């Protein structure tokens, strides 16, 4: 919930579902009246108790960090161990969970020169040894798949969201630099995903409940040089084409910690085949990759997600919510506390 994308998903779901519960380690970015919130950590197995006590039938697992450079161990802890706990909480005959949506990323494919121009869902992790984030995501998806095989009563969908370039993401900050150092001799094809479409895809996954793995990314591509020019920057091909860790070191000095999987994407490019999404969801992202770049360039992307509100405002909203409920039901609703 402290993640803008998850908050946006919650906001959209709030009007469509009878009851909504959110949990996160940190405070949510904005309070939603229809949503009850608890502080809970996916790294501990509190999810099972939560799910059983509240009779939750749909779980949306979005606590998957993709865009954190440097902290490999923390990301592993969140992605693999966290997912394991969520799945363990949802498993078993006593579990009321009938639908599970797991957020994954296009980073699960990595990027390599030998990849086909459009990677389909089945191509993940087939040929090369994986490392870092890619290995974590593969492991996470494997756990999810095992869960879905074991638990026949639960429909599991895994959404591999494309690379997003809103203000906060590393890729977005990289492209917004006035002078963008690029890997010399490479001009990869980029495929992006708008925040709006990412939220919409998750919401549709929850409502429609299609089983399987889906690529979610915008139509069309832009070349990296085009993307930089759209942002009004200048591409400067100085980073070494071989020994890319040197280039990443130089970028770190410039304040951008480029994770290894993004360095691969910025060299070889990664484009996903989203035909399965279009066929089964009957929906495709509204923004093309070019439109995503244009909206980033206009600075309008910020409108989609509300700026984080200060903690006082959050507490105020919670207080007002309780007052409204008191006026409506005669009691403010049971307070839910979960030990951290």
């Amino acid at each position, binding site marked *: 919930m402290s993640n803008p994308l998850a908050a946006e998903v919650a906001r959209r779901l709030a009007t469509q579902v009878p009851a909504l519960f959110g949990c996160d380690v940190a405070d949510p970015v904005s309070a939603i009246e229809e949503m009850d919130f608890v502080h809970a950590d996916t790294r501990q197995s509190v999810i099972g108790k939560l799910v059983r006590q509240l009779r939750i039938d749909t779980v949306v697992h979005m606590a998957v960090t993709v865009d954190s450079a440097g902290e490999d161990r923390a990301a592993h802890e969140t992605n693999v161990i966290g997912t394991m706990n969520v799945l363990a909480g949802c498993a078993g005959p006593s579990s009321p969970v009938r639908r599970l949506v797991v957020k994954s990323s296009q980073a699960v494919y990595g990027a*390599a*020169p*030998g*990849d*086909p*121009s*459009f990677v*389909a869902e089945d191509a993940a992790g087939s040929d090369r040894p994986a490392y870092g984030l890619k290995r974590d995501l593969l492991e996470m998806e494997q756990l999810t798949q095992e869960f879905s095989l074991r638990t026949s009563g639960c429909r599991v969908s895994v959404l591999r969201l494309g690379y997003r370039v809103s*203000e906060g993401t590393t890729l977005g900050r990289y492209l*917004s630099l*006035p002078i963008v150092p690029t*890997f*010399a*001799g*490479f*001009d990869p*094809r980029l495929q992006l995903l708008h925040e709006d479409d990412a939220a919409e895809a998750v919401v549709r996954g929850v409502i429609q409940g299609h089983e399987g793995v889906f690529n979610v990314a915008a139509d*069309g*591509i*832009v*070349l990296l*040089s*085009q*993307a*930089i*020019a*759209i*942002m*009004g920057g200048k591409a400067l091909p100085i980073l070494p*084409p071989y020994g890319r860790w040197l280039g990443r070191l130089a970028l770190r000095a410039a304040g951008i910690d480029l994770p290894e999987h993004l360095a691969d994407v910025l060299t*070889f*490019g990664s*484009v996903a085949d989203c035909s399965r999404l279009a066929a089964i969801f009957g929906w495709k992202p509204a923004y093309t990759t070019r439109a995503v770049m244009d909206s*980033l*360039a*206009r*600075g309008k992307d*910020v*409108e989609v997600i509300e*700026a984080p509100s200060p903690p006082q405002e959050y507490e105020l909203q919670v207080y007002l919510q309780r007052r409204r409920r008191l006026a409506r039901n005669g009691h403010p609703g049971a307070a839910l506390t979960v030990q951290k």
Partner: protein
Amino acid sequence: MAERATSTDSKTLRRRSRKARVVSPPPAPRLRLPKEIRRLQRQAPMYALQGISDLSTRLRDMTGRDVIDVNRLMAVMQFVYQQRELARRGPDYAVDDFGFDAEWTESFLVLFKALYRDYWRVETTGIENVPATGRALLVSNHAGVLPWDGTMIKTAIFAEHPNPRHVRALVASLFMGMPVLSWFLRRTGQTVGHPDDTRRLLERDELVLVFPEGVKGTGKPFKDRYRLRRFGRGGFVSTAIRAGAPIIPVSVVGSEEIYPMVADATPAARLFGLPYFPITPTWPWLGPLGMIPLPSKWRIQFHPPVHTESHSPESANDQHLVMTISDEVRDTIQKGIYDNLKLRRGVFV
């Protein structure tokens, strides 16, 4: 005073709010030269061209024949202007999903046509076997250290065909990992030699060019010239059958002599991560000059198509049928090479 305080408050609040931030920076002021110099700059090429055409007429009057080819000069000027025009497009140009920039590629055809007509004097036969519309898979022999044969097949179809089409060649994944090369190949319409890519291109009704020999063909020594290497597992045949595309065998003669590769320096190849490191009479002894290909005489023959549409898509799994067709295509190409070698009077004439 209180009003003042609130107004500054709201001002700072507005400054801190993230909604109003504009990402694109304002255009930087540019240094401009005086008007007269800029006008001269603009008109200098025109003056130069006038001077050269005057000189050309005077020389023709004196010697009685064309000493300076003005048309050729005009072509060069046009190329330079086109490149400047293309650079001015900014980010607003269209590339297809494979990264192919048709406009940019066509601007290079002037150069490739000059190589095609004047340098290698390519004679093309059987161009009528290439369909004007619809999908087809061109299969060719591969030779010469650098893939100039692919370039010339592309140029042949664009220059000679009544309905000029772009050919999309498939490239070994190895080259897609190399700087500059990967960028140039993608931009001019090539893609990775992956069955999935071939299928997609054929389903878009494109002309796809494939070299089943791969780097084994380009890296073979000079003494083995015009002997086809193995055609692998016939993957191109099964892809063509699945996509219902006819296979058009292509024989290229002349590409073997552009860089006579006398030896392969394997340690150097291993050092640079290349499939082979050629040693030719000029490379690497003359440095970059050694990369200039020799002006051999070329012939390209497009053979009648092998129709795979008659087979059902399921028969793509029939290894016997696939290998039979693959051998048939290979024999056609090999025979075409021998025929064209006989038709050629000499290596350089």
